[in-house]
């Protein structure tokens, strides 16, 4: 048992899988000699050598192409796209190539690969280094989308992603890199597609993921103490596959749904959840489905502005209190 930060968990997760399987290689910008710009991959080059831990040029299309071709031909590669915003320069490889090739070839080609990336806001990096791209990825059939909220989950879900035979986007929330959690020793693997119920309550269900998980939990505690409103909090953990059954069960039981999303509201994943709930358990609902999300704007840089933009504990408490009233 050890207490690890999410940042440390990244390194341990990669090492766990590289030790297990010699076909796992890892590449990205500044990931090897420098140990990554987030210092999350320190020591991997030393342990696994330059043939398995590779510093690349600033060529995101070449990076994703390389892991795609390598995964078609026997390797299980991992690439880092430093900030998730940079997926925009190599999006073709993800959406047109990786997501479609297996289907188009009638199942001839498997693509066991992982694209890990620093995602989300909160660090005052401004609009081009703070985006939450889980919604971009979720909208494209053929890509699995994983976003852990704890160090232990990060290791377990990362292992499952590497072992999965399909392409995975693995989102590391930059705002959580410094957060800590207990992690047991030994190998950890957690299945993709299973949500975690982080808290149980009878009045409403809060569905969330990533950086918003600790905020939703804190908000739920406050709602309980201050207002006597008792909430279930679901951490989805993966968006594709989506544990819709867990959401439907909990929302049926509580009659109310709130989503808490870091991504900008319009076509955030909460919209899909709401549309599933509004179709499949309409008659179990006791009131409106409410989404708490970043508004429809790019993220501003100044801390004061950014903090009012991404859902805060206060904003969550306030909205739920008002809408449950």
């Amino acid at each position, binding site marked *: 048992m050890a207490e690890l930060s999410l940042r440390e968990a990244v390194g341990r997760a990669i090492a766990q899988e590289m030790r297990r399987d010699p076909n796992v290689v890892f590449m990205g910008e500044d990931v090897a000699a420098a140990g990554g710009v987030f210092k999350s991959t320190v020591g991997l080059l030393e342990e696994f050598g330059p043939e398995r831990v590779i510093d690349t040029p600033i060529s995101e299309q*070449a990076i994703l192409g*390389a892991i795609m071709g390598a995964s078609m031909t026997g*390797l299980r590669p991992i690439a880092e796209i430093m900030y998730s915003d940079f997926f925009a320069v190599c999006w073709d490889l993800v959406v*047109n190539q990786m997501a479609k090739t297996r289907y*188009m070839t009638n*199942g001839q080609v498997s693509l066991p690969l992982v694209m890990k990336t620093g995602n989300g806001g909160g660090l005052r990096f401004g609009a081009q280094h703070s985006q939450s791209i889980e919604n971009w990825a979720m909208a494209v059939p053929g890509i699995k989308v994983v976003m852990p909220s704890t160090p232990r989950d990060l290791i377990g879900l990362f292992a499952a992603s590497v072992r999965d035979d399909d392409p995975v986007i693995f989102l590391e929330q930059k705002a959580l890199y410094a957060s800590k959690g207990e992690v047991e020793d030994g190998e950890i693997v957690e299945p993709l597609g299973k949500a975690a119920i982080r808290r149980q309550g009878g009045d409403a269900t809060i569905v969330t993921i990533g950086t918003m998980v600790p905020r939703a939990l804190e908000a739920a505690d406050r709602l309980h103490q201050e207002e006597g409103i008792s909430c279930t909090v679901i951490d989805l953990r993966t968006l594709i596959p989506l544990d819709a059954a867990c959401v439907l069960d909990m929302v049926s039981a509580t009659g109310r749904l709130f989503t808490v999303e870091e991504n900008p509201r319009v076509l955030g994943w909460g919209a899909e959840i709401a549309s599933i709930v509004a179709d499949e358990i309409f008659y179990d609902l006791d009131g409106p489905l409410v989404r708490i999300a970043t508004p429809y704007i790019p993220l501003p840089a100044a801390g004061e502005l950014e903090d009012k933009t991404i859902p805060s504990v206060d904003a969550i408490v306030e909205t739920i209190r008002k809408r449950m009233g």
Partner: protein
Amino acid sequence: MSMTYAPGEPTQPAGAPPSLQVRLALYRRMVELRVFEKRVYDVFLQGLVKGTTHLSLGEEAISAAYGEAMRKDDWTFATYRGHAHTLSRGVPMAPIMAELMGRRGGLMAGKGGSMHLTSVEHGMMGSYAIVGAHLPIANGAALSAKYRKSGQVAVCFFGDGTTNIGAFHEALNFAAVWKLPIVFVCENNLYMEYTAISAVTAVEHPAADRAGAYGLERILVDGNDADVMYETATRTLERARSGEGPSLVEALTYRHAGHSRADPGKYRPDQEVAEWMQRDPIDIYRARLLSQGVDASVLGRIDSDVADAVAVATEVAKASPPPGEDLIMKDLWSDGSSTWRN
């Protein structure tokens, strides 16, 4: 040899000609590509091919030569214009034809269509319809060969127009830095879709004139000469296999037909078309073989064998049923499903 588009441009000299066996195989393959694609055009006119198709008529020497020179476990990466490259790896004709017709017996059961021909068991690792995308992907296969020390080589075909897209640049640099076992083959047919490459490119030879930007040798060859192409293929594959790294080949050629099935190709000057029709790779090769003592009956036999095979393949394809709805929700994921939620 004169090429009006590039007067006086030297092309790489061919070494010793290949063996007779190889030459006959090259001839057979080129004829196969030609007759097959002419039949594709016929069945398209009969309304049996929907969507689009991109023919390589006139460009056969390039893919035929590489197909002949490659090892069985080498990999081909091609474009939407990929019938020729697929056939050149020994993929049978009937499933290709059936794919174009959208039938269950198609190479991908009709799910991919003409622009995505793939046969992993033949080392045909895919046809890609986004210009430039497959260059970085082919690098990945080469990286894997290098990592596993398997001796395999990736060969990646693309057109002149592809040299102006970002992925080209990233892929060439990446391959050169890691000395990957890969050959990039630019089939310069002088046109993108309908626009002359010279109108939109800062250098005369869009691939060869840029080799230096990646520390690579400038290789500009006559893509309509099967012997030159075979020698180029052998040499570049050997270089890749021996660990010396990538090559970037620019092969000059011309497409006889339009860009795709919808295109009559009217934007090209009559004179240019006429000159290039004179430089038909198959005519040239047939004449050369005959002049060097190969008996006309040998070539005639190949011609009629191929004609028969294409006819049979076409009938097999026509007899194949439509794909069937059961395929629609299959094979998005490796578990065979397309399930995204429970």
